[in-house]
């Protein structure tokens, strides 16, 4: 199983009822559990297997639910493994690129392998130390395609990311000295680019989840909060801000829909960027409507503000990816043909 362009055109062998059962279970789990608990629940549900047969349903349901509930799991790292077509053992995870970028997190040179990437929340969890392995991806030395190798977590330096959103549970993972990681295996097919594409869609869905919750928080507040003898939801200035926010959410969701339909890594990059830009718009309007109360930690808005800002940095942020897309268009002097009717 590799990336979205090899994904089954329909949702694999799952009929409507099975899809419904899967997505309901996944959403239920992600809305009420987080971290290792959620990982355990996803293992029970068989989420990784579901990705192989129904990638769109499995990915969108889980990541949107995580975004909506501000929960987290190791699913992203495991998703990349599925996309790369590499069998992951229990306790394995794929290392994500550095924050703000999309390049493979490992680099091979004569002296060994250097590592600089992010570990998702599943990287360090329960179990005997050393039972967890990290799957590293690096570009082949001759520049053609990519390859993977594994290293035990204990061979790497890990540092918990605090910063804006410590609850996300990211780790900075580096090698310190160049490592000797043993055998590298070539990755066939779409390879790293296909994995990044799928990762971008997953993060995009998670961003859409955060956007939907921020909007619901603002909407709910606007209906409850009374000033000048009427709910502030009755003032056109407030209504129009929330309308703009909904347009941003729906635009981002549409871009993801288009990317799943189009199936190209380019469309996934575009959709990921749309989600990052959309989240910024939603944050702006919802922060304004939620006014004073939304600015305190007594209210949940700040958790979604933090989450969405940091998520935008996974697999490259909206601003950088957008500029890269534009540079490519200017260089080619043409627009890509995407998403036929």
């Amino acid at each position: 199983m590799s990336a979205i362009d090899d994904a089954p055109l329909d949702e694999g062998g799952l009929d409507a009822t099975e899809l419904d059962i899967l997505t309901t279970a996944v959403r239920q789990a992600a809305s009420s559990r987080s971290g290792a608990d959620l990982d355990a629940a996803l293992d029970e549900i068989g989420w990784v297997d579901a990705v192989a047969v129904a990638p769109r349903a499995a990915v969108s349901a889980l990541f949107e639910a995580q975004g909506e509930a501000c929960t987290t799991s190791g699913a992203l790292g495991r998703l990349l493994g599925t996309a790369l077509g590499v069998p992951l053992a229990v306790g394995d995870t794929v290392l994500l690129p550095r924050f703000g970028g999309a390049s493979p997190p490992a680099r091979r040179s004569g002296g060994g392998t250097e590592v600089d990437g992010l570990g998702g929340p599943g990287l360090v969890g329960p179990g005997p130390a050393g039972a967890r392995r990290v799957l590293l991806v690096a570009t082949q030395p001759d520049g053609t395609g990519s390859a993977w190798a594994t290293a035990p977590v204990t061979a790497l330096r890990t540092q918990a990311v605090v910063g804006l959103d410590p609850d996300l549970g990211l780790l900075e993972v580096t090698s310190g000295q160049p490592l000797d990681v043993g055998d590298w295996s070539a990755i066939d097919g779409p390879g790293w680019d296909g994995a990044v594409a799928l990762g971008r869609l997953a993060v995009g869905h998670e961003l859409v989840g955060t956007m939907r919750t921020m909007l619901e928080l603002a909407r709910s507040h606007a209906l409850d909060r009374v000033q000048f003898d009427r709910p502030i939801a009755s003032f056109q200035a407030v209504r129009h801000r929330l309308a703009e926010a909904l347009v941003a959410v729906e635009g981002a969701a549409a871009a993801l829909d288009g990317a799943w339909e189009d199936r190209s890594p380019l469309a996934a990059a575009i959709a990921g960027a749309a989600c990052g830009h959309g989240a910024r718009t939603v944050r702006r309007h919802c922060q304004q409507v939620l006014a004073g109360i939304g600015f305190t930690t007594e209210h949940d808005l700040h958790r979604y503000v933090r989450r969405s800002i940091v998520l935008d940095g996974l697999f490259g942020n909206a601003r950088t990816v957008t500029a890269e897309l534009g540079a490519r268009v200017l260089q080619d002097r043409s627009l890509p043909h995407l998403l036929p009717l």
Partner: protein
Amino acid sequence: MELDEFRTELDRWLDAAADELAPGPGATASMDGEMAQLAKVKRLTFDAGWMRWGWPERVGGLGGSPLLRGYLGEAVTARGLVDPGLYSMTEVLAPTMIDYAPPELAADAVPRLLRGDETWCQGFSEPGTGSNLAALTCRATLVPSAAGDVWRVDGQKVWTSLAQYAQRCVLLVRTGTVEDAHRGITALFVDMDSPGITVRPITTMHGRDEFSEVFFDGVEVPTDRQLGDVGQGWAVAMDLLPFERSTALWHRGAFLRRRLADLVVDAPDGALRPDEVGRALVDLFALRARSRRTLHRLDEGERLGPETSIDKILLATCEQEVFDLAADALAERVALGDDDASEHWRSEYLYSRAATIYGGSAEIQRNIVARRLLDLGADR
């Protein structure tokens, strides 16, 4: 006829007929020229069958999905063969006739529209009635005549696109009282050569006098020219909107994509920044994806509703974004250029300022989103 087959065959035909279909040099420099070009493309595509797909057989169509109409409009727009706004009026007016006209009238009239033998206009807005369409006052009164009772129409319409070219008008009139509001409105199909109609084109700021004032002074309209029942005019108007927000919207999105592609070629080196081009690409993709999903929903028989206000907002925003980029990157040509291409950029830039005004203003769209999609309650 399936979409994939239609696409392949149509593309092949458009390639083969390219010389015949192309506008001559300078042909689209004027409104008259654009209309002649549109009529030519409609005639050629109708006679070759393409224009007939996606319309019911009882009105001269060949049946099939609205997706086929979507693709045809996209293809002729993407090749620069038609002005998308003019082309897409068919998308809005034909369904109205099909759903509400007496069957014989629809069977007679719709093929003429599809083939470009006739141009139709839509008489909705009035000087005193824009966003608040339900308050329209153009009056129709039932009066006796030699041939039995007829509607006598008195009043005025404004912003009537293509009225000066039109043979027919889909006209909304008040047949009830003012207090009846939207329930007192009836739709009529009026011949523009009826005695008592005066058309006065409006000079716009973008150089294309595309709309007019239309005055009705004792105009007689037979009752068999009613579209739907007396008092059903509001439903006629509301049912028309989803078509504006689906196929017509898809066509305009294709036009914006083509113009961005043209801009990338026409702009001097360094005039366009990667981030702004990238952002336009991202926004156009979101618009395209949204519009595509709406068209597929239409195809599957779903009822389109207030959610299409989102499509409209995305479109208007994209249109202004693309032409803002053009005005920046081609500043000297837009400000000073006298050649055909510069005049097109200039005219389209100015027209893009109206994208948030026509077809339901940006404010009205956001009101609809707030009330109907976000359920924010009353706004007073």
